[in-house]
């Protein structure tokens, strides 16, 4: 059950790709997180930000939870200034999580930009629980080599990692879905679509492309959505996306990304 915590900052350091790695001491929740979950951090920053800021959980150990973030605006810029020894007020763990693929499936992880954290977490959980590493294919996309997020760490999990860069400075040249498409077009056709699974996280445009891809190849996709989140725990109705809903008279309804998601079936989302 989510709750409000004051968490000591173990470390908050810059890593590859202009990202920051934040480690928080959180024995109360470290054990109860799942890939896809996120936390809401209250960042007191000069200026007038009222809302918390949501961040996916990157991974956990017995005592700590970790978050990987990029400095996008005022809140994240201020977060980067926090030092070990400080304290952050957070709410978590929040949201739903990815479903577990069967051990005999081929798993595609498609992540762009700061969409890597939940996918990394899922990968780590899968490999730890004995899921065959060779069946995991992680597509990590960015504009260029320097912007690739958490690439080495993902490789260290012993899975198949494909860098995809728009300028071709590393790996496949193109957007991350191009990489995934090439792979899906190439994989042994003897593998049933039901034995393939896609998990994706990244900017909305990318996720839209992933949804198309999943539909095209008839593969079940789960995607982690983003939204502006005034609360993060379901009370404001501010973070909704349009989702197919057979019960509704117009066949769709607005679902909360924070509480009904952030993980949705790709095929349920209605992209405008």
């Amino acid at each position: 059950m989510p709750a409000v915590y004051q968490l000591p900052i173990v470390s908050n350091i810059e890593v590859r790709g202009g990202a920051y790695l934040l480690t928080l001491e959180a024995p109360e929740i470290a054990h109860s997180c799942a890939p896809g979950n996120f936390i809401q951090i209250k960042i007191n920053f000069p200026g007038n930000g009222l809302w918390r800021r949501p961040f996916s959980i990157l991974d956990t150990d017995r005592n700590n939870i970790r978050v990987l973030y990029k400095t996008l605006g005022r809140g994240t810029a201020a977060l980067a200034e926090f030092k070990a020894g400080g304290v952050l007020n957070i709410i978590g763990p929040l949201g739903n999580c990815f479903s577990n693929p069967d051990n005999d499936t081929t798993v595609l992880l498609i992540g762009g930009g700061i969409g890597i954290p939940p996918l990394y977490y899922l990968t780590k959980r899968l490999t730890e629980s004995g899921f065959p590493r060779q069946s995991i294919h992680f597509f990590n996309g960015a504009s260029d080599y320097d912007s690739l997020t958490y690439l080495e760490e993902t490789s260290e999990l012993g899975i198949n990692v494909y860098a995809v860069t728009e300028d071709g400075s590393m790996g496949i040249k193109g957007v991350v879905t191009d990489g995934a498409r090439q792979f899906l077009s190439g994989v042994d056709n003897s593998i049933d679509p039901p034995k393939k699974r896609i998990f994706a996280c990244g900017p909305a445009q990318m996720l839209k492309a992933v949804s198309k891809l999943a539909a095209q190849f008839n593969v079940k996709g789960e995607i982690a959505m983003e939204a502006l989140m005034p609360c993060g725990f379901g009370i404001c109705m501010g973070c909704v996306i349009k989702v197919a809903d057979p019960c509704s008279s117009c066949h769709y309804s607005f679902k909360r990304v924070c509480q009904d998601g952030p993980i949705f079936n790709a095929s349920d989302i209605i992209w405008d």
Partner: protein
Amino acid sequence: MTDLSIQIAGHKYANPVWLASGTCAYGRELADYFPLSSLGAIVTKTITLEPRLGHPSPRVFETPSGMLNAIGLQNDGIRDFISNKIKFLGQHRADLIVNIAGKSISEYCQLCEQLTGISDIISAIELNMSCPNVSNGLEFSKNAELAEQLVKMARKSTHLPLIAKLSPNVSNIVEIAQAVEQGGADAISMINTLVGMAVDIETFKPRLSNVTGGLSGPAIKPVALAMVYRTYQQIKIPIIGIGGIMNYKDAIEFMLCGAQAVQVGTANFVNPMASIEILNGMQNWLQEKGYDSPSEIVGKVEA
């Protein structure tokens, strides 16, 4: 210990700290953080006769010390509320106020009638006369005659206490307050959000799909306080103060200006425990100053 209970329209509320409509959904999520029964009351998100999908995203935007919202009254309708949502609230012994909105006076009346059927678990009905995010939503609280008429008719449709929730987007809020008092309202809650807007200068698009929305949060507190203060001088029915209340000091400010109770809105988003912390802070403050009841400070600003 100071007894925080207050009496409004014959009903005894455990304390003057309530949750504002649309900022606590139907209680389910907040129940993870604290027992709903510890608050004076919880006011449901606005309920309409028919289900409403609400507006597409983006529905919210952060502004200096505030936020804009244009949710568009998303809700599953009164039938769903009565058959599905109310049970949970009853089980958790929340003191329940149901906020309703209609497209016409007759819709308000139908809603009142349906709620009367479950009046044993409802302590009052709040009439949302002031939602800035639906067309005509503001009409009822901009026109004194219409406002009076609406309350009068609602009054005939239920024996439940009626709280009229007013909009700040008016030239003379006292006039509207007097009209709803005249119409038979048992109390007034104020304020709803101020109409506002923001634009993304990179895309030239409004920050809200609905273009304009409602401004809430600390930014609007001074406006709310002035309106409560002025209204308090001119009416007899109790006022429930709303607008930018983030801590117990803000709540006390409202009470000094004339509010018998307060509703906590946007603060819940930032801190789900906000209302409880406000309650505890108020309790301590009243205690330390030696007050026996919160009503002793209502309207006591030395202006």
